[in-house]
């Protein structure tokens, strides 16, 4: 079987690479915790391991998947972001998770913005959704900052999630959303800027 190439995405502060076996302990720590309650967790040791293996295999089966987010300077992992499309999923999803102790720095915004651009520009996606637990206010807030809007008419995964529809490539290119995201990311990257007021990923 040929070796599959997973592209490396670089942003201002982050490097996104495919999930590797040595990244597993960080993934495991999060999925064993309450933080993963909106992602189907917490999971036991077997379920967590199988999910990680499935994250890797998704790249091979679909040709895209979830990247591991690394700090560009220290290389430590911060979470995951990318595309997710299991069987029976109504549409391709842009998904993310940030390790609990790494939240609040805008890493999810910076990485999801980059992966969405990659899917639109390199893979030719004409749109995407995010399936979010209605109680997951941080993720709903992030979806909104990404310009996604609630789509009440779109089918959800299992009726327990809400669908946020991302702006199309054209809408993203022709509106100010892209600029606003870039500006917010640059604020996060600026140590003088301290966002206040709401929970952030």
């Amino acid at each position, binding site marked *: *079987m*040929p*070796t*599959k*190439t*997973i592209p*490396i995405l670089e942003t201002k502060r982050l490097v996104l*690479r*495919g999930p590797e*076996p040595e990244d*597993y302990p960080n993934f495991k720590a999060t999925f064993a915790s309450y933080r993963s309650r909106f992602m189907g967790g917490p999971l036991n*040791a*077997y379920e*967590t*391991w*199988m*999910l*990680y*293996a*499935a*994250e*890797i*295999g*998704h*790249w*091979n*089966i679909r040709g895209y998947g979830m990247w591991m987010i690394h700090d560009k300077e220290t290389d430590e992992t911060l979470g995951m972001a990318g595309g997710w499309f*299991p*069987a*029976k*999923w109504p549409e391709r999803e842009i998904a993310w998770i940030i390790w609990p102790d790494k939240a609040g720095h805008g890493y999810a915004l910076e990485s999801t913005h980059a992966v969405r651009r990659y899917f639109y520009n390199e893979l030719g996606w004409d749109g995407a959704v995010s399936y979010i637990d209605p109680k997951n206010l941080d993720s709903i807030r992030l979806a909104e900052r990404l310009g996604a809007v609630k789509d009440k008419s779109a089918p959800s995964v299992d009726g327990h999630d809400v669908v946020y529809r991302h702006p199309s490539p054209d809408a993203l290119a022709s509106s100010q959303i892209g600029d606003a995201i870039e500006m917010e990311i640059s604020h996060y990257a600026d140590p003088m800027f301290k966002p206040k007021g709401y929970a952030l990923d």
Partner: protein
Amino acid sequence: MSLNINIPVIETERLRLRAPQLSDLEAMTKFFASDRSQFVGGPRDEATTFMSLTSRIGHWVVRGHGLWHFEEKETGTFMGWTGVINAPGWHEPELGWSVMEAGEGKGYASEAAIAARTYAATHFGMPQLMSYLAPANARSIAMAKRLGATYEREHQLHGKLCHVYRHPKVEAA
């Protein structure tokens, strides 16, 4: 970066053992929806089966060994899987197998499992694997015995009782 997916292809007289692929999903889903899967973690719905498919590939990446899917050489029809499973809860690597309905009664599972067992001894440094078998899974127990495996002891796999069958020591090919 490249994802190091190195799943070897093995050919036997009638079968080709190769990586799991998306076109196998339909037959896998049918298998996991049926009673045939009752001794191997089923039943599973299609979404869970998809996760099984993708996790099998990840298993190879993480462990360097895993399950092959095998197809009939002549027709290319996906007939089942075999190989080495080593996930949390496994006390040591296991030689596992399942055969789809279409491949039953032809000795395909044995043919594939013997090839996988030899490959594991030769390339994975696993000369004497064991298999977990549900005590009620008479057909697989009969096959394990035909392969020369013998009952060793009981084991609890994720809270379910199973029997450990030890395979004979296999010389590296």
